[in-house]
C-alpha cells in the first residue's frame, strides 16, 4: 500500500447510463400521464402541471396568487378543512408557480393516496377564492417581500433578470409592494377559469404504486374540463438593458456585495447547449471549477461562487453568482473575467477535462437515485418538448467534447462585452 498513490479507478466515462423509460397514457379528457413506477418505498408523488405560469397573467402577481389560493377554499371545504384532510394522512399538497407552468403536487404514502385524490380534485374543480384568503395572502406576501428586499442577494437576483430580459418579459418581471396590493379576487377567479378549469394539464406520477393506478387518476381527473383546446403561450420580446454595469447600494451597512454577471443564452434546443454544459461545469459549475478554485480556494474572497445556465423553456441566460466581501467585490469581478480570458486563450489540459467528464457522469449516475429523481429528468425533457435523445446526447457530449471545441465556445460566448454585471451592496 502506498498512501501517495491513488487506487486504480474505473473512469466514470466508461459507464453506460440508462434513464428508466416512463409509461405513457391518456385520461378520458386527453390529459397526458407520464408514469415511473420504481423504488422500494411505498410512497407516491403526483405532479399536475398546468400551463398557468406568470407568462399568462395580465397583471403582476395574479398567476402566483391564483396558484397559492387553490388550497384556500372550495364550495364545500374551507382552507382549514383542506389542510386537515391532507395533513391527517401525513400527505403534502404543495403548489408552485413558474414562468410557463404552475404545479399542484401531492406527496403521500401510497396506502393513503386514494383518500387524498378527491381533495385535489375538489381544488381543481370547485375552488372559490374567498376574499378574506386573498387579503391574508397579500398581507403576508407583502411582509415577506419587505424582509427580502433588505437582502442584497434577493435584490441582485431579480435585478439581473430584469437587465437580461427586460422588465416586461415574464422572466425579467418582478413584483413591488404596490403590485401586490393591486391584485384583486376577480382576476384570480378569471385566471382560474381560463388556465385551470379550462386550461391544459399534464400529470407526472412516480413512486411505488399499483399497476392500475391510472384508473384512479382517471376517476378523479379524467372528467376535468381541461385540454379541450390548446392554451397558447404568448410570445415576448427580450429587451436587454442598454447599460452594462450596475452598482446599487441597498444597505449602507452592508459587509458584502451580491455579484451577478450574466449574458443572454439560447435554450436547450441550441446545438451548442450540451457542450456548453461541460464548459460551464469547468468554469463555475462545481466545487472544483476554475472560479471556485481561484476566488474561494486561492483568494478567500467568498464562501462560494457558481456559474449556471438558467433553467428556462424559452430563452435563457448564462449567469455567474456570488456574495463576496465588500472590499474585494471589484477584485472578484476582475478575476471572473480573467478566468474567462484563460478559457479563451489556453487550451484545457487533458487531466482537467477528464476530471470534469468523470465528475459530471458520476453526478448523473448519482442523480438517478429513486423514482422521483428519474421523473424529474423526464419532466424536464417533456416540458421542454424534447425526447430521450437529449439525455443520451448530453452524455455523449460529456464523454466526447474536445478541448478545441471548448476553447472555440469560450471565444464565442465568454467575452466580457456579452455580459451585464451588477453588484448590490
Amino acid at each position, binding site marked *: 500500500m502506498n498512501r501517495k498513490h491513488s487506487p486504480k479507478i474505473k473512469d466514470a466515462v466508461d459507464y453506460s447510463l440508462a434513464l428508466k423509460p416512463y409509461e405513457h397514457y391518456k385520461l378520458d379528457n386527453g390529459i397526458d400521464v407520464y408514469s415511473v413506477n420504481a423504488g422500494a418505498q411505498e410512497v407516491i408523488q403526483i405532479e399536475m402541471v398546468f400551463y398557468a405560469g406568470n407568462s399568462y397573467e395580465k397583471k403582476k402577481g395574479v398567476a402566483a396568487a391564483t396558484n397559492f389560493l387553490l388550497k384556500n377554499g372550495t364550495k364545500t371545504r374551507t382552507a382549514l378543512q383542506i389542510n386537515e384532510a391532507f395533513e391527517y394522512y401525513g400527505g403534502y399538497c404543495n403548489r408552485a408557480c413558474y414562468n410557463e407552468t404552475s404545479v399542484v403536487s401531492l406527496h403521500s404514502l401510497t396506502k393513503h393516496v386514494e383518500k387524498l385524490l378527491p381533495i385535489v380534485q375538489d381544488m381543481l374543480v370547485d375552488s372559490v377564492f374567498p376574499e378574506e384568503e386573498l387579503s391574508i395572502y397579500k398581507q403576508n406576501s407583502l411582509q415577506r417581500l419587505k424582509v427580502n428586499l433588505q437582502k442584497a442577494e434577493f435584490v441582485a437576483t431579480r435585478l439581473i433578470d430584469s437587465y437580461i430580459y427586460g422588465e416586461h418579459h415574464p422572466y425579467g418581471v418582478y413584483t413591488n409592494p404596490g403590485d401586490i396590493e393591486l391584485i384583486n379576487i376577480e382576476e384570480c377567479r378569471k385566471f382560474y377559469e381560463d388556465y385551470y378549469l379550462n386550461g391544459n394539464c399534464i400529470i407526472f406520477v412516480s413512486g411505488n404504486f399499483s399497476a392500475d393506478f391510472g384508473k384512479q387518476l382517471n376517476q378523479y381527473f379524467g372528467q376535468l374540463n381541461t385540454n379541450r383546446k390548446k392554451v397558447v403561450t404568448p410570445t415576448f420580446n427580450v429587451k436587454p438593458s442598454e447599460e452594462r454595469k450596475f452598482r446599487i447600494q441597498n444597505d449602507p451597512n452592508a459587509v458584502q456585495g451580491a455579484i451577478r454577471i450574466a449574458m443572454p443564452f439560447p435554450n436547450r434546443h441550441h446545438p451548442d447547449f450540451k457542450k456548453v454544459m461541460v464548459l460551464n461545469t469547468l468554469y463555475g459549475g462545481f*466545487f472544483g471549477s476554475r472560479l471556485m478554485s481561484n476566488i474561494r480556494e486561492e483568494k478567500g474572497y467568498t464562501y462560494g461562487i457558481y456559474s449556471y445556465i438558467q433553467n428556462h423553456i424559452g430563452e435563457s441566460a448564462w449567469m455567474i453568482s456570488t456574495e463576496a466581501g465588500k472590499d474585494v467585490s471589484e477584485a472578484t469581478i476582475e478575476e471572473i473575467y480573467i478566468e474567462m480570458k484563460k478559457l479563451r486563450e489556453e487550451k484545457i489540459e487533458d487531466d482537467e477535462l477528464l476530471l470534469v467528464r*468523470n465528475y459530471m457522469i458520476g453526478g448523473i449516475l448519482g442523480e438517478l437515485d429513486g423514482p422521483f429523481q428519474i421523473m424529474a429528468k423526464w419532466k424536464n425533457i417533456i416540458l421542454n418538448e424534447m425526447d430521450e435523445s437529449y439525455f443520451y446526447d448530453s452524455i455523449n457530449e460529456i464523454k466526447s467534447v474536445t478541448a478545441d471545441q471548448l476553447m472555440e465556445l469560450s471565444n464565442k460566448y465568454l467575452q466580457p462585452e456579452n455580459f451585464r454585471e451588477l453588484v448590490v451592496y
Partner: protein
Amino acid sequence: MFLTNLLFKHLEFIELLKHNKTKQTYLCRMIHFEKFTLENGLRVLVHEDKSTPMAVLNVLYDVGARDENPEKTGFAHLFEHLMFGGSINIPSYDEPLQVAGGENNAFTTNDLTNYYCQLPAENIETAFWLESDRMLSLAFSKKSLEVQRKVVCEEFKEHYINKPYGDVWHKMRQLTYTTHPYKWMTIGASLKHVEDATLEDVKAFFFKHYTPCNAILVVAGNIDTAQIKLLAEKWFGPIPSGEKYQRDLPVEPKQIKPRHLEVKSNVPLDALYKCWHMYPRMDNRYYAADLISDILSGGGSSRLYQSLVKEKQLFSNLDCYHFGSTDAGLMTIEGKLVKGVDIKVAEQAVLEELKKLQDEGISPSELEKVKNKAESAMAFEDMSLMNRASSIAMYENLGDADLINTELSKYQAVTAEEIAREVRDIFDENNCSTMYYLSDN
C-alpha cells in the same frame, strides 16, 4: 418536527401496531447494517444496497462547537474547512475524488462534525484512500489556514451579518444558556475568534479529536460487507488509535425565572422569539416534545398557524421547532408580526394558545395526525443513499445505530397524557427566554 435523517428505503415493511381508533396499520422497517470495530477503536458500519450503482463513505467525528474553548469558538467548523486543504500524503482531497466521479461535502453542528462522499461503487477504494489519509494526519498548510479563515469570515458575513435577523441566534443562545457551550453558534461567537486561529490550535484540535477512537465510519451502497471489512482494515487499521476524548461539559442549571431581551434593529418587521429548555435527545420524553412542535406549527392545520396567522392575523408567519440537539435543547416559537400589531398583544395570544393546549390537551385525531405525519415524514425523509449513511452514523454516535429501527415505534407509543404532561412541563414561563426583536424604522 425534527427528524435527524430517519432512514427508510429498501427495507422490508412489517406490521407494527394497530391503532385502536382507526385500525390503521403503521409502517415499520428494518434497516440492515453490519457493525464491527477495528483494533484502533474505529467503529465501522456497512449498509448494503444493491439497487444503486453508487457507494457512500461517511465519517463522523464526535466533536462539535460545544467542545470548543469559549475563547476560541467557531473552531470546530473552521477546522472542517481545513480538512479539505490537503492531508499528509495527498495534496488535494477534492481532485482525486472528482476524477473518480465522486463528490463530497461536510457539515458541523454544535454536537458533531460529519464528512461524506458519494462515488460510483467500483471506485469506493478511492474514498478509503482519501478519508483514511486525512484521519492519519493533515498537511497543516499555512496557506490553507489563511485562505479558509477568510472563507469562513465571508460565510459568517453572508449568513449572520449581511442579513436582516441574521444575529438572532447569536443573541438568543446567549440569553438561553448561561453555562452550557450551546451558548455560542457553530459559526462562532465572533469573527475575531475565527480570525485569530493559529496553526498550533489546528494541530492540537486535530490530535485531540480526529482519531479513530473518536470517529464512526459508515459505508453504504452497492458494496459487499466482506470487501469493506478488508478495505477498512487496510486503510484505517494502521492509524494510531489516539486517546478517547472524555466529554465533560458544564451543565446548564435549571432556569427558574423568565428572561427578557429587547433588541432594536434595522429590520422591516417586529419579531417575537420565545425559547423553552427541553429534553436531551436520548430522553424518552423527547418524542412527545417533538410531536408537540408539530401540533403547534407543523402545517396549515396546526394550532398556531390557524389561530394566529389565519384567524387573528397577528403574525405573518409563526413556527414552532427545535434543533434536535444531543444535550438539552430549546423548544422555540418564533414569528414575524403583522405591521401595526403590538408585540405584547401578539405574545399574549401565543401564551393563550399554549394555555389552551395545557388545559384542554389534544384530541385523539390530532394525536393521530401528528403520528401519521411522523410516519410519512420518515418515509420521505431519506430517499437518498447519502442521507441513510449519515443517519446510521448519527444514531451510532447517539449510542446505538439500532435506534434507527426503533425510532418510529417510539413516536407511535406517545400518548395524549404524555403530551399533556410535557406541554405543562416545557411551557412554563419560568423556563422561558423571550426576545422582542423590534424594527427601528
